[in-house]
């Protein structure tokens, strides 16, 4: 039997505010434990939360960028449960009246274009972090992250594969980056995914029993976890079993997904309206002002690249998927002044190759876009050959040095001196009499061989066009 996988995603994104959601502590990452704390975010007796206005602004921005309806009236609620990383033993979140509802995003893939519904976006506070590294085996808690603002973006169960889930999650990431709502640093945990997944026989309209996997923090983990869980559920059904509603834990290291707690063990969060905060009331004017402030979003930008710059749709999609990439690309095009397609070819080829090799992204590029433009200009004016430029580019990615300096340091200046080249080519012809014979006898492809030998002799520095001309002349 064929099965269909049904997936809904809950995406948690840390907002890029300077201060926490309910107090003035900094949200900076990576400092010494428990140094970004105060009575409010530590939940000391008598301390009260005060809502950070920037949090509302950012969440509304995220809502508008994902085509949500923004609720003029929403409120905060307490979600009660005990855990050492949660200082008040309740998380201030939003329950039945979230800030944003009923949005959508379009994703594009081999399947064409597909609309994914967004149920809601709400604001809430992050928890602290447990550290299990104490020497005596005890657990310590770092509350620096406690109270960092989050939005939770809940999708409809519209996703049907790991691929769709990845595309959707990437799109959300791009939008959050474009709107500067979140820095989406995944290695710092500022973007995390919860997967709700069920399977059903193809053609069946009733949803199967779902499981939930929490806190996946990379696209790779997202894809692997979905594939693994989907396979597991199908196997359970195939062997005549029943899927149990439960929370499961995905282990990135072992690549396995195991049961964490069953439905019976699930918390009763006892949500109720947070009495320490007043409801959030937003005027239409405020919402419209934020709508006007929205930047050009990835879809629109990609369309512009295709229509105005003639980029292939695929390339435009890849470049606009990450805001830092798109910004780098545009700066480079501007500085270069030539055909944007030349730039996009380099991005899609050389830059993507380096990203893949190093596991890097646009935010890791160690040189300004101007350097890349300069390098392309050096190719155009014949200072370096295309192949030498690739070596310069690779080196530039390592050291961040200026291309001109690198060309000199690596000795890759193209040889365009006719006299010097003529000498080298004569030597090459002497070494390869057979090829010379062949060419003269009419085997034209022998020319290519001789050009190659010349390039080899000059370590790629010879100007290929010139080599061609001289060779033809001598032959």
């Amino acid at each position, binding site marked *: 039997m064929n099965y269909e996988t049904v997936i809904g995603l809950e995406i948690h994104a840390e907002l890029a505010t300077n201060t926490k959601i309910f107090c003035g502590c900094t949200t900076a990452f990576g400092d010494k434990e428990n140094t970004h704390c105060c*009575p409010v975010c530590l*939940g000391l*007796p*008598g301390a009260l939360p*005060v809502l950070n206005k920037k949090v509302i602004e950012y969440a509304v921005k995220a809502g508008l960028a994902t085509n949500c309806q923004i609720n003029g009236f929403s409120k905060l609620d307490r979600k*009660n449960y*005990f855990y050492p990383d949660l200082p008040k033993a*309740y998380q201030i979140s939003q329950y039945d009246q979230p800030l944003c509802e009923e949005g959508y995003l379009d994703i594009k893939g081999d399947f064409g274009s597909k609309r994914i519904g967004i149920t809601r976006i709400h604001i809430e506070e992050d928890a602290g972090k447990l550290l299990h590294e104490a020497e005596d085996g005890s657990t310590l808690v770092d509350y620096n992250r406690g109270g960092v603002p989050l939005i939770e973006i809940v999708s409809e169960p519209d996703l049907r594969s790991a691929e769709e889930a990845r595309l959707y999650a990437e799109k959300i990431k791009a939008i959050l980056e474009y709107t500067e709502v979140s820095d989406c640093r995944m290695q710092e945990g500022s973007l995390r995914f919860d997967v709700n997944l069920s399977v059903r026989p193809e053609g069946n309209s009733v949803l199967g029993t779902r499981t939930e996997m929490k806190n996946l923090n990379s696209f790779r983990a997202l894809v692997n976890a979905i594939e693994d869980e989907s396979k597991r559920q199908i196997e359970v059904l195939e062997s005549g079993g029943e899927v149990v509603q439960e929370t499961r834990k995905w282990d990135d290291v072992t690549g396995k997904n195991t049961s964490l707690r069953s439905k019976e063990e699930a918390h009763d969060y006892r949500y109720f309206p947070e*009495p320490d*905060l007043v409801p959030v009331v937003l005027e239409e004017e405020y919402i419209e002002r934020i709508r006007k402030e929205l930047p050009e979003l990835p879809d629109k930008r990609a369309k512009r690249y295709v229509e105005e710059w003639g980029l292939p749709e695929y390339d435009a999609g890849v470049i606009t998927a990450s805001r830092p990439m798109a910004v780098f690309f545009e700066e480079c095009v501007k500085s270069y002044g030539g055909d944007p397609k030349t730039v996009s070819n380099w991005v899609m080829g050389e830059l993507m190759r380096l990203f893949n090799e190093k596991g890097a992204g646009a935010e890791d590029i160690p040189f300004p876009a101007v350097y890349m433009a300069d390098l392309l200009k050096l190719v155009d004016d014949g200072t370096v050959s295309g192949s030498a430029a690739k070596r310069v580019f690779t080196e530039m990615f390592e050291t961040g040095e200026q291309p001109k300096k690198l060309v000199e340091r690596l000795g890759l200046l193209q040889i365009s001196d006719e006299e010097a080249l003529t000498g080298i080519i004569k030597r090459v012809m002497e070494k390869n009499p057979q090829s010379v014979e062949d060419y003269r006898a009419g085997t034209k492809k022998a020319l290519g061989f001789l050009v190659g030998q010349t390039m080899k002799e000059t370590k790629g520095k010879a100007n290929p066009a010139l080599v061609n001309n001289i060779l033809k002349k001598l032959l």
Partner: protein
Amino acid sequence: MYHYMTVSELAQRIKKREVSAEETTRSFIERIEELDEKVGAYITVEKDRALKTARDIDKKLKQGCELSPLAGIPMALKDNICTENIRTTCASKTLEDFVPPYSADVYERLEKAGCITLGKTNMDEFAMGSSTESSAFKVTRNPWDDSSIPGDSSGGSAAAVAAGMAAFALGTDTGGSIRQPTALCGVVGMKPTYGRVSRYGVVAYASSLDQVGPITRDVKDCALVLNHICGHDRRDSTSMVVAAPDFQAGLEEGIRGMRIGIPSEYFGKGIEQGVRDRVTEAIGVLEDLGAECEEVSLPHTIYALSAYYIISSAEASSNMARYDGIRYGYRAKDYSDLLDMYIKTRSEGFGAEVKRRIMLGTYALSSGNYDAYYKKAQKVRTLIKADFDSVFEDYDLIVCPTSSLVVIRSGEKTNDPLQKILPNVNTVPANIAGLPALSVPCGFLGNLPVGMQFIGKPFAESTLLRAAYAYQQNTGFHKMHPQV
């Protein structure tokens, strides 16, 4: 000899330097040392700190500094008001050794005004109880009769003022916890409008009901202290941005033509006959002063106590959850794992009354029960508010008994928890509706004081104070003191 002076009188003498702040403070501390073993009003007395602060005030006075009218006045604070570097226990084993690293807004304001903190007063554990007997540390006696309770839950603060062991005190009021004990101890207590005074740094019992207020000897002092504790605080989102008038300004304007509603529901079954009589006599005084008193109806009053019990317990169950032994406060000695630590810490740290309310509140909020209890209680809340709104269309304020009972013996308790809060039947509605309410002494039943309550429109504290002041100008009950 200063023990029974009002704040206004003391302030005059300190300002004129007839007496120093240090002498005043020392005299109150001696009084505490002499009497508190019997009364049990204080959990913590800060003798050295108080005397040092007093000397600082005297120095400033000598230098001719312009100081606030409260400078050098010795006060007591209920032990759920956070005081930086002074232990704040909430009368609970859970916070027995808790020294807050920060101060409540009200404490900051009074410290800035130059008040001298004598110490922290006894209370029901986390303000939950009906007699100040649920304190983990001690029992507070009513200074008028040591076999009687001082009322809940700011009993320590009310007893301290009544026994001349503080010039004034602060209490907190969630369902009557200022008005109830001030009525039983024969002093003046006000619960301001919800949002009038910042709750920042006041350990929460039920966040949507809690409010801090003054406990004083007379109405004029009440206005004076209120002047110094109210005002918007951006650290408390429920603190209202409203202008605070000078509450002493209109005190003497009288009450001629003032329209006063007398709600029949507040004089009904369950109200001790003697209480009814004293309050009726007091209403006669108000009429003599020119007020127009008429019977009114607040029909949903009978549901107030049940709604209060559910809402306050629900919020309390969540507010108490942070006392898990992880970051501060009591932690059990032996435990096998995290869950065991939670269970033992909370079982050992909390007393019976707090546990009862946590369980009740948890039940009321549980899925499947929420609609039947919490949501329904919120609907009742709306109805009770509407009752008041409708009466206040025609009347300036409401007058009724404060506590329904006066004679409540120590240890005299039933096993029915609802029975225990019955004396609060008349105080709870003002919390539910967020209204200001004031209790003043209006006579005696045997040797025990009886309290009369004024309830007003939101932010109409001035009206309450004016009416109560007029009453006190024409009666002498507030000038009577217990023989401790």
